[in-house]
């Protein structure tokens, strides 16, 4: 059909945006405010490690980190295209943006895979 790979990249963008909008505030509230300010009792290192060792938690963290990276990549790509009118550098910009998101995804996968 049409649109090249745009529909696929948009799906990643869209999923990442949804995750970021819904879940980031929760994480920011918990680990950025509630735990350091003592509103809630902070979990111990051991219990967090225990949590992250569970495969479902790792899967959750993988998507929570990777998809918003693609959201950023897609948004930033069009910001450069249209905002700075750099459409003639289209390939370079696309490779850089999605490349960064891909690197971030690989690093995330590697780190989560190697949780002791």
């Amino acid at each position, binding site marked *: *059909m*049409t*649109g090249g790979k*745009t*529909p*696929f990249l*948009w*799906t990643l963008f*869209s999923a990442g945006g949804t995750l970021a909008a819904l879940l980031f505030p929760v994480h920011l509230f918990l680990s950025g405010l509630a735990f350091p300010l003592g509103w809630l009792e902070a979990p111990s290192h051991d219990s967090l490690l225990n949590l992250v060792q569970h495969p479902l938690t790792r899967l959750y963290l993988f998507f929570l980190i990777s998809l918003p990276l693609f959201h950023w990549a897609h948004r930033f790509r*069009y910001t450069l295209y*249209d905002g700075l*009118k750099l459409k003639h550098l289209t390939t370079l910009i696309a490779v850089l943006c999605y490349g960064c998101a891909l690197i971030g995804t690989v690093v995330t996968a590697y780190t989560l895979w190697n949780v002791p």
Partner: protein
Amino acid sequence: MGSREKLPPTVTLAVTRYRPEEESEPTLQTYEAPYRKDWVVLDALNYIKDKVDGSLSFRWSCRMGVCGSCGMMVNGEPKLTCAAFLSDYLPGPIRVEPLQFFPIVRDLVVDMTDFLHKLKKVKPWVVREEERPLSEGEYRQTPEQLDIYKQFSMCINCMLCYAACPIYGLEPGFVGPAAIALAQRYNLDSRDIGAQERLDILSGKDGIWECTFVGECTKVCPKNVDPAGAIQQYKLTGAAHWFKSVLLPWGRK
């Protein structure tokens, strides 16, 4: 009574003039019009046309936000001039220009051929396999079925959303907000079967994927149609079709 004296007696309008037989470039000409609390920009333009300069050209018809013909840039923002109160732009001068991104025919009149052409391409009418004879009665619809598309049906083709869309400014081929919202209006209509015919235009090269969700179209829409919402909604449909065509390449397109 006391407040009446504080009102400015007149307001200055800087209006685009372009008479192709006289000028090669549009220029701004200033006019004075009386200020009235209940006057809109269109009233001031009509005053100028009637009393000051009969050669000024602009489109208007209903004066009540229904016909969609009096759209212009007011202080750089796309507005229906029949709904833009002078009191909101005091002390002036108020800049009145033709809708941006459209070729100017004369003064404040733009050439809307491009929009009409795009509108026609998305088939904004109920497509049916076969029309039922009149004797079989009307096509019935429940209130719920109506609610699904009603918002998108409020579009009056005023083209403010095109003048607000930076993508349309950069990519003149872009099908654009109103045409996509109207395509969605028929796609979502329970009586219509034309969604497949509209798919190629909507998710083609100049379709929904050009949109980067700036959202200005929805902001300026005088009828709360939310074209940006229609486009994002259709992106989901387009993406679903894309996945289907990749995962089931042997299936029908």
